[in-house]
């Protein structure tokens, strides 16, 4: 069973073929992004005279630099807030059996079912009345609340499986609940914090609907909205569009390849939560 047999070789060949099929769209993406607009040969034929002109043009015209900064700021700040408030909330929710604790937990879990489309239209009005439309703060506020249920769910599940002995020992030694959380509980939550960090960062970074609503018509764009705007503007100039798409993918893939083990484990980690 643990030997490399003929059947293993056949499986290997089949899997590599599948992977090539999966990678094919990416080949076309790179191939066309490197191609001058005047070259109208078949998109699957390798480009004969590769050029970087599309990249410089896309970078300048799509305002991707500013969008990249906005996306980084929005993702970093809102994920930080979500992790902080959710882990803190999970502590009593996982440990206390009081009525208020159970009630609060159920209320927050209700958020797992509610689709954000229901909240986002009335919230649009509130954000507008607060004068926050077009500001990245509206997004940070939105994600900080939207991601609470899922993150709290992960933390509570993990915390319930942890023994209370360390907390009890620390409190006998005179730790206040806050110190206990900061120095005893939170460090033990590290594995689930990594999972929550990865899943939240990916979903905030990739979200399109919310910034489309709250930032449309302003100069402040996140990456997905900047890309959509650019595609709308250069409808059929696909070489240029593909260069912009590739620019937006590169930072994400770079982070993914650098941290692939934690990221894949993070996604799979939701299984244990």
């Amino acid at each position, binding site marked *: 069973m643990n030997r490399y047999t003929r059947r293993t070789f056949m499986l290997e060949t089949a899997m590599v073929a599948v992977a090539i099929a*999966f990678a094919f769209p990416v080949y076309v993406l790179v191939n066309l992004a490197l191609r001058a607009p005047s070259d109208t040969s078949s*998109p699957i034929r390798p480009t004969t005279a590769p050029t970087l002109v599309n990249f410089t043009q896309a970078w300048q015209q799509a305002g991707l630099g500013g969008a990249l900064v906005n996306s980084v700021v929005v993702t970093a700040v809102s994920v930080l807030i979500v992790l902080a408030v959710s882990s803190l909330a999970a*502590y009593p929710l996982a440990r206390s059996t009081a009525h208020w604790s159970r009630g609060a937990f159920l209320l927050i879990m209700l958020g797992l079912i509610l*689709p954000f489309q229901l909240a986002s239209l*009335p919230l649009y009005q509130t954000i507008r009345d607060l004068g926050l439309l077009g500001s990245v703060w509206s997004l940070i506020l939105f994600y900080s*609340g939207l991601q609470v249920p899922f993150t709290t769910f992960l933390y509570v599940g993990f915390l319930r499986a942890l023994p209370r002995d360390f907390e*009890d020992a620390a409190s*006998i030694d005179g730790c206040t609940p806050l110190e206990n959380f900061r120095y005893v509980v939170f460090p033990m939550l590290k594995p689930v914090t990594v999972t929550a960090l990865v899943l939240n960062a990916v979903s905030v970074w990739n979200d399109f609907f919310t910034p489309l609503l709250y930032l449309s018509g302003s100069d402040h764009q996140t990456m997905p909205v900047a890309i959509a705007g650019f595609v709308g503007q250069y409808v059929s100039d696909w070489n240029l569009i*593909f260069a912009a798409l590739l620019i937006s993918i590169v930072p*994400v893939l770079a982070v993914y390849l650098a941290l692939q083990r934690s990221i894949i484990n993070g996604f799979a980690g939701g299984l244990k939560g």
Partner: protein
Amino acid sequence: MTIDTKARPSPAVVTATRPRRSRVAPPWWFVAPAMALFAFVVLVPSARGVYYAFTDWDGLDPEFSFVGLRNFAGMLDDPTALQAVWHTVLIAVAITVIQNGIGLLLALGVNSMIKTRNVLRVLLFAPAVVTPIVTAYLWRNLLGPDGAVNSLLGAAGLGSWQQDWLGNPRLALWMIVLVIVWQFAGYSMVIFLAGLQSIPREIYEAAALDGTGAVRRFWSIVRPLLAPAITVNLMLSIIGGIKLFDQVYALTGGGPGHATDTIATLIYKDAFTLGEFGYSVALAVVLTAIVAVASAGQYTVLSRHERAAS
């Protein structure tokens, strides 16, 4: 200095005078920041949304009136809305079946002795981290009249199959499913793989020694032990499918005609191009109901399975 320290009680004395507690009770206010954000962003607006669904609110005018069930009754006379509900359910079911089927096969393939297993795992999962709107624009070109899919067909001698894949009302919906499966099959794979790797090797080996065939081994041993992974995967894909917006927006914009409109795209169009906020939030209420029914149904069926398996 020395006198000063002697004058103070030692820290040990201070601790001893504190009341002793054997158990920490984390205070309720630890929940307050999370609850405040959640209430402001999700709970209160959702409740208002449900209320607005019974009004003729246009999103701007502070004056609006209560119209009862008119918005919901209007949906029954609105073929676009009925179609969108059908498309939403169809997409969710198709994605759930196809994406998880392929994801499971990939997981079984990668969870073997093949040498490329680590590279393949990283490669096949990669699309799942890329922004959906970006992959959707990529595929919009691939599936276009001059796109790479038609070029491939031409090169394979299947020129008669060439067409505008997204412009064909009968195929466009399935093209959206294809794009989502391409992007997220690796995601399902990773979750199945984690489930497969948690199954102790001895169990397979014992069954193999007993002469159990591969199919039987999968069905009687792997499948029941995979129950938690199946639950997570089905939950993720069905809810993701029901809420689908980005890919439809980027690939077809709901077209041709309304051939690929989902509830989520109609919510957006009705609110922001037609100004019918009341009707739009009523659609969002329907969406919520579908998600709730799907989650509850899945939870009941799957937790029964998980219990049976354990």
